């Protein structure tokens, strides 16, 4: 399968480098990244709109690097990064007339594209969108569709494109993939995509019910001893690289003004959770509440970024 539209590498294929330190100490060398934040403390978010002038709306989002990554950057010792921080750019083109061939639509037709840069993750990604990227696109579309007032733009289309320059890890790099493993990093990426897309839509001056923001919460068990008594704990804005195993995670797209969830994605077994004394909620309720709280946190950043974008637009005109 040779892609003739791109420059291809050697026909025999290449192999990613294997680090010798990984083999010497069995399960992995170096210190495991540790979460330095409180369970309810979120990472800082950098969000800026209007960086891409040729688009009608755009935004750039970046998560604060975790403590271990910041330390590794300041004082580089190993070539293997301990964790990674999300970086993504979002553009909105439209509303624009639908192509002639398209069927009549009384509403705004929303299309979302999510693409990882080939260098976004630990494993090199292909140039063609794979199924996980398409899946993210669908999740993002449902999250945004609930927020946009689509009846105001009949017969028009809106293209939302997200380029992920750096993704989140699915696990700590030293861990071997095991049964607990799912693509947990994807959920953080989706939360970032939702917040960034929401800012870009606001930057394009498209009417929405409210700014929709994304938040992640997870039930994690960090104990190395697998005793049944220690139930997983609830963590907000969990970075998968910082936890030994994630039992269950949830991402929501949430509109605070209407107290409405437009998208909910929950994975894993949330039946067991160690909550505070007297907390009667079941595991998944606590998880969803946690994700909503994380989304509320992201919303404050989002509102600030949109205010900035509006002030800039008013200053120009």
């Amino acid at each position, binding site marked *: 399968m040779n892609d003739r*539209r*791109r*420059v*291809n*590498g*050697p*026909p*025999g*294929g*290449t*192999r*990613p*480098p*294997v*680090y*010798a*330190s990984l*083999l010497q100490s069995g399960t992995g*060398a170096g210190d495991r990244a540790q979460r330095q934040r409180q369970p309810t403390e979120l990472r800082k978010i950098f969000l800026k709109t209007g*960086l*891409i*002038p*040729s*688009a009608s709306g*755009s935004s750039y989002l970046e998560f604060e690097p975790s403590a271990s*990554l910041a330390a590794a950057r300041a004082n*580089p*010792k*190993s*070539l*293997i*990064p301990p964790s*990674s*921080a999300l*970086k993504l*750019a*979002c*553009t909105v*083109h439209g509303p*624009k007339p639908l192509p002639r061939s398209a069927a009549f639509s009384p509403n705004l037709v929303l299309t979302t*594209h999510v*693409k990882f*840069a*080939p*260098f*976004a*993750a*630990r494993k*090199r990604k292909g*140039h063609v*969108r794979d199924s996980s990227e398409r899946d993210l696109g669908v999740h993002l579309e449902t999250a945004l569709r609930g927020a946009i007032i689509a009846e105001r733009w009949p017969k028009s289309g809106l*293209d*939302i*494109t*997200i*380029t992920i*320059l*750096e993704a989140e890890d699915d696990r700590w790099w030293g861990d071997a993939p095991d049964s607990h493993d799912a693509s947990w990093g994807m959920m953080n990426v989706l939360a970032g995509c939702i917040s960034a897309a929401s800012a870009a839509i606001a930057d394009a001056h498209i009417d929405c019910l409210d700014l929709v923001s994304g938040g992640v919460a997870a039930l994690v068990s960090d104990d190395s001893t697998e005793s049944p008594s220690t139930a997983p704990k609830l963590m907000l804005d969990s970075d998968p690289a910082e936890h030994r195993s994630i039992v269950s995670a949830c991402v929501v797209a949430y509109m605070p003004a209407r107290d409405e969830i437009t998208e909910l994605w929950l994975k894993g077994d949330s039946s067991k959770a160690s909550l505070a004394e007297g907390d009667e909620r079941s595991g998944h309720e606590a998880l969803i509440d946690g994700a909503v709280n994380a989304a509320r946190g992201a919303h404050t950043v989002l509102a600030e970024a949109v205010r900035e974008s509006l002030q800039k637009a008013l200053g120009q005109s």
Partner: protein
Amino acid sequence: MASAAAPPAAPNSLSLPPSQFARLQPHAYLLAHLSPPPAINQPSIRANGRAASQFRVTSANAGSLTHTNGSAVVRLGDTTAVCGVRAEILHTDDIASWSVSQSTNANKRRRLADSEKPTDESDDAEDEEDRAHVEDLNLLVPNISLSTGCAPGFIPSAPPSALAQSLSHQILSLLHTTRMVRAEDLRIWYQPPNLGPEELERHNEEEQMDVDAGQGLEEESKPAEIKAFWVLYIDIMLISLAGNPFDAAWAATLAALRDTKLPQAWWDIDNETIFCSDKVTESRKLSLRGLPIASSFCVFEADAAAGWRAVVIPDAEEQKALEKKGSQQKWILADPDGYEEGLSQERVCIVVDKEENGKGKTVVVKMEKHGGWTVDSDDLRQLVDVSASRWEEMKRILDQC
């Protein structure tokens, strides 16, 4: 821009803002900026406020992406390119024709060693091998992606457009012709250990050989062999496109390659594979040959049909000569933005380098001109000078990042 722009064609009573006029009559708008009437004492300036040979504000930042061996972000005004370099390993076992090509190379090397030729010729041979390894084995793999929503025209899910394909190819051919990346940096050597005593033992078991012959063999150590190559995947994402994608992409590639660190790698004979060390202290940077800097120009013509008219209607020649006295007919604009690119046909791209790290003379690495015939050799000479001064500026920016 707004204050400078009231073009003479639009009377004041008609309250058309300059931005509207720019959209309705782009050619007249830019022409009015470049040739203001002599009555209002204004210099000729582009619609974006730059002088004709002025480049946009450029900034570069390297090494901010975590999962790359080297990365850079270059902003050229509103055009932004992100480049990430990822190194992977190509084992010589995976190269189909390796054993064949290697034996001929080995012969060549032996011949050289025998004849003890002067150094310049052996340099040539080394260069030839450099070229053969980097180009024939596809060790450099640049790809530009424009489907990032960088401009309205590109559909994100579509395969690479003709522009993206052409840009990728231009980057690749420029990487090859400048021979910027040395093949030696990309080779992973293996020195087979000297198994002299062991061999000797075996010999002793089989037949009683005299010790002198065995030691003679021992002294002639086995030649080092190439076990693998590093392959550099150079991926350039144009995040924002507002004209002149090539300069931005090339600058990003250059900055990322300057930032690239390759880990120490060795062939492990027990596992029959390549292992790398993750220590930063053991990794090494690429030693690049030179610093070629690209500068693009576009030609804006007051009357694009003038040249053709001279051919079709010979009488027009005199008229043209008359016109030439009065006013300028063409402007060569450095670092065109999207608006200017849309109004011009003729493009010039010049890649220059300076010998001895800027102290030596200027070398033209690549010169490309297409789309028209208004730029003559004098103009090109001037453009090379402009590119040379741009080289200084870019070197400063790249050294800082």
